[in-house]
Structures are given as C-alpha cells and as structure tokens.
C-alpha cells in the first residue's frame, strides 16, 4: 500500500497506533463515531481514546451505560441507519452479554434480508490473558466469533496492523470484529510515517524460515518471534505466519508455509478443544495431507478457566519454551 521509496519509520506503541487509527477515522469521516463503556471521560479502559472526548465532543465519543447488548445492538441500528459506528466492548468476556446481537442479528441481517440490509459495524474488543485478571477477564474467546458466518474477525498483532486495519474494517460493508490483545498495548514497534490502511484478507509471514512453520496471531505472535530467535540459535529456522484474520482464514498462506517447511506448530492463547487451532490443523490436514511428515503440534491455553496466581496463569498460557519444544519436536521427530 505504501510507495516503494524508502519510508521513514518511527517507534510507536500499539496503544498509540490504535489511537492514531481511531483519530484518523474520526477526522476523515463524519459518519464515524466511537461508543462504549468509558471511552470518553475515563479515556478508555486501556487509555486508547484519551483526549478524544475533548477533541471530538460527546456526540461522537459516547460513554454508554453498562448495557453491552443495547449499545452493540445500537451500533447495528446506527450502521443500518447510515452511520459508521465503532463500538468498543471492554473485553471479549463481557461481549457474551451482547452475543445475541452480534450472532443473531449483526451476522444474519444481510442474509435474512436477501442481500438488502448490510451492517457496516466495527466492534473493537480487548482479549487475552497475562495480567493476572483471572477467569472472568482473561479468556480469548475470539474463537467463538470466528465460527460465525457473516462476521469478519481481525486480530492485529503489529503496530502496522492496529494502525491500518481499522480503516479497512470501516470501509467494509459488513460487521467486522477487531480483537486487541491486552498485552500488546504497551508494546513498541516501528511504523512508517505514512502508514495507512492495510488489507484484511491475507495472513503475513513475519519471519522467513525453512524448517518449521509457527502459525499464530495476536498476542502470541511475539512469543513465536521470540521462540524463532531461540530456535535460530539452535540452528532451526522457523517461519512465523501471522494469521491476522481469523475469519475468513487465508488458507493459501497457511498451505504455502506448510508446503515450504513441512512442519507446523500452531500457537493460540484460546483453549485447544474446538479452538481456531483445531480449524487450522484440520485445514492443513485436508489441504496439505502429503506435505507433513509428522502431525501438526498445537500449543494452546490449558483447558482451565485462567487462574489468578501468576505461576498458574503462566502455566495455563502458551509460553516461549513450549513453542520451542513443540517446534523441536516436529523438526527432530521426537521430544
């Protein structure tokens, strides 16, 4: 999307990049507004929209009551009514209170109306664990939404993507869910001065490698990158594929990397059973059956409600060492 000339880069946090994206959207299109709990006076529970209320005013930066179902549903109605709402749900855990609106309404109207009523709604949610917030604040439930036809599910892991996906999501005529991992907000990355919209179709190889593919998304991307470094020190070149979009999955990129390395590890902070890791495994199994010498490895959250205590939370979530171990296992053919 950028020109091929050398681009000036700057360091920026994920939070700041998310904020720039929102700022740009609010500035460029007067149909865009932001609504959710504490997006205004409080500045956003993860401080992403700090100062927006003052800049854009209370009509466009709308603090809502604690009413997830109503304000998500209101987002649907406003989208149908010609606006381009960005609804923020504090965490995916609370979004279960709005699951009816998202799944039974936002995802169905276009189809049930025979193509007449599209819902250009963007919903942002924080997801993931790692801050010792325990079982009602730490789950990675993006899986559930990735199962639903009619929705698109984005998981920006880089500053470039969190900066660029929003504009594309807003231009999309259909409901798009954007999941931001809570551990990413303080993370820094390099962003081109002229960074703008990015595609929301394709997975992206974040590191080239030949021996094993680490397939992941969101917060786990950086664990995979770290694992790849460690593996490199041991002579194993891991390719890291960032899915970027969980629905629709980019099969082509998945199959390409697996066909190249013949070994795959899927890393997902969601629970293993019935998670996105299962779907990716199934697609590899179906579409690259003869490419693998050994089965795909899955490194996922242990199937427990995420506990508070740090050592237990760490044990429950995928960690770098596990990824390294899984990669070595598929590369070496044994533990």
């Amino acid at each position, binding site marked *: 999307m950028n020109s091929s000339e050398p681009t000036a880069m700057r360091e920026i946090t994920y939070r700041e990049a998310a904020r720039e994206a929102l700022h740009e959207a609010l500035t460029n299109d007067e149909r865009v507004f932001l609504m959710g709990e504490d997006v205004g006076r409080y500045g956003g529970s993860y401080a992403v929209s700090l100062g927006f209320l003052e800049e854009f005013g209370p009509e466009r930066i709308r603090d809502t009551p604690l009413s997830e179902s109503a304000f998500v549903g209101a987002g649907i*109605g406003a989208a149908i009514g010609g606006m381009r709402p960005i609804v923020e749900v504090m965490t995916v855990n609370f979004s279960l209170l709005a699951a009816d609106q998202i799944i039974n309404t936002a995802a169905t109207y276009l189809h049930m*109306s025979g193509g007449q009523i599209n819902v250009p709604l963007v919903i942002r949610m924080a997801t993931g664990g790692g801050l010792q917030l325990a079982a009602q604040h730490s789950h990675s439930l993006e899986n559930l939404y990735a199962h639903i036809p009619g929705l698109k599910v984005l998981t920006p892991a880089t500053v470039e993507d969190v900066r660029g996906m929003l504009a594309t999501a807003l231009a999309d*005529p259909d409901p798009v869910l954007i999941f931001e991992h809570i551990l990413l907000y303080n993370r820094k990355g390099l962003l081109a001065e002229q960074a703008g919209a990015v595609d929301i179709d394709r997975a992206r190889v974040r590191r080239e490698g030949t021996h094993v593919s680490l397939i992941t998304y969101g917060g786990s991307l950086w664990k995979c990158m770290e694992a790849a470094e460690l593996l490199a020190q041991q002579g194993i070149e891991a390719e890291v594929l960032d899915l970027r979009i969980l629905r629709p999955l980019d099969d082509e990129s998945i199959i390409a990397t697996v066909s190249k390395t013949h070994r795959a590890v899927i890393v997902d902070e969601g629970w293993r059973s019935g998670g996105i890791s299962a779907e990716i495994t199934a697609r590899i199994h179906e579409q690259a059956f003869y490419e693998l010498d050994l089965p795909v490895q899955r490194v996922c959250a242990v199937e427990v409600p995420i506990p508070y205590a740090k050592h237990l939370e760490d044990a429950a979530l995928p960690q770098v060492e596990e990824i390294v171990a899984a990669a070595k296992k598929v590369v070496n053919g044994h533990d």
Partner: protein
Amino acid sequence: MITAAEPLPDTVDGEHALVLFTQMLRVRRFEEKSAEMYSKGNIRGFLHLYIGEEAVGTGIMQSVAPQDAVVATYREHGHALLRGIPMNAVMAEMFGKQEGCSRGRGGSMHLFDKATRFIGGNAIVGGGLPVAVGYALAAKMRGTDAVAWCIFGEGAMAEGEFHESLNLAELWQLPVVFCCENNFYAMGTALDRSESETRLVEKARSYRLDAEVVDGMDVLATEAAARRAADSARSGNGPYFIEFQTYRFKAHSMFDAERYRSKEEVHEHELHGPLRTFAARLSASGLLDDDKRATLEAEIAAEIEAAVAFAEAGTPEPVDDLTRFVYSEVQP
C-alpha cells in the same frame, strides 16, 4: 371498549375511516389466506398470525413517514403490508421464492424491505429493540427527522434488552416510538405470570419515557396515540412508549394447542374484535353497507388471489446462489 353500534365522532373523516377499515380487512384476509396456504404446505416453518391485532399496526402506520424505519417481530406480515411492501413480495417470501421481499431466505418471520426501511422481521424476542434505538441514534446524529418505530410484544418487556434499550433511548433522547402490542400472552404465558408489574406504562415511565396505554382494538384510538407519539418523537422530545392492549384470536403459531386459555376467553374478545366493532360503527355512521363491504372484500380477495398466483409462479432461487449474502457482494 367501544359499543358496536356507536357511530363515529364527527371529527373523523369518513373517507379516512374507510381507508383504515380497508387496511385492517386487507391484513385480516391476508392472514386467513396465509393460514390456508400453511395447511396446504405452501408456507412452512413458523407462522404467527396477526388476526385480532389489526387495529394496532393499522393505527401505527398512519404516522409512519417515508423517512422512518420500522423494526418488527416475527408476527409482522400485517406491518409489512401496511408499511407498503407489495403483497406479492410478502406472499412470495412466505412461499420461499426469489421474488419474495427477502428472496425467500427469511420467510414469514424475516420480512425485510430496504425501500420502505422495514428492518425486519426479528425472531429473537426483544432483539429488535437495540436495533431501533441505533437507527434512531443515526437519525438524530445525521440531523434527519426520521423516527424509528419499534414494535414488540409484551413478552419482550421481561428481556434485559428492553431495559437497556429504553434507558439508552431516554438517556440520549432518541426518536424511537416503542410500540408494545400487549396481547396478554407470550406463547402460553399470561402477562401476570411474566411481569411483577403488569401496568406496562409504569415500567416505561420508570425510565422517564412519555408513555400511554390505549385500546388496541380501536383503530381510531391507536391512530391517535401513534400520532401523538410521532409528533413528540419527531419534534425532539425523545422516545415515547405506547401500550396497545389487544388480543390474539388465533394460536401463537401453527404449533400451539392453546391449553393456556379457554375458548370462552377467546370468544369474548372476538366479540369485540377490531374489524367487527369498526365495521359496525362505520355502518352506524352510514359509511359502510353490504354492497360496499362486498366490493371491498372482492377487491381484497382479488389482490390476495393474485399474490398467491404470483407466489406460486415464483422461482426458487438457484441452489448455486446459496452462499450469496453472507457477505456483501460489493467490497471496497
């Protein structure tokens, strides 16, 4: 309750009264034909008839302006017709044909029409309320004077989405008219088994909404209430709530043995049905006689027969098109 023989007040325009009657009759006959088509297997799935409640939708629709949106439930054929969706398209929809207003994908419970801003046909009880609130929010932010008309049964009032929606609409002073069709039953659950406070207007008032209760069997009353609501909402006074007290003469859907109410109770209400009562008043006022009635019936019957023929002649959508409309076809 209006006595059957009472003539219309002088303030009512006779022409207009006949229009109201005709609209109600058209819905009634359409519903009767739908039931027949259901028994013949042309219509399938769930079918929720509006018979007995015609005065509500008819009264409401008189105040629905072109720029307004209507958000309805699964019991919405009447509203769809009254809003102006062509009868052919509604019948074809229920037949599952491509010429249907939702291309046959929605069926009886999911009538949609973008042209008249008829935003469904939502079969999740309470599910339409937040959508209507959002539509009203858009209308307000865009500076139009559109109103969102939100129609739901009294059963929906127990759902959390009712509570959240009324609060949001009032808090943000949005132009929504909440139209509760209180037919006193949610499937088999009588109002007093579902609400601790059965005076429904009190519930709406507890969010500080303007609220009124009206006789939903009297089309003049429903029309007047809707007009007050429209004026209020359109002129920036925020949301409005109307409880229309009415009654469903038929089963909840076609799968209902009606064990929860007596035949006598139903019969009692039928005696005061909206068509019967209004017809008597029109006669008493000299506006309707047997000939006139026969003419109306014939016109409506002809329209309905044509709609059935249209629906029957309709084409099933090609199976190859199954996966269309999961996502929009025009992508940016």
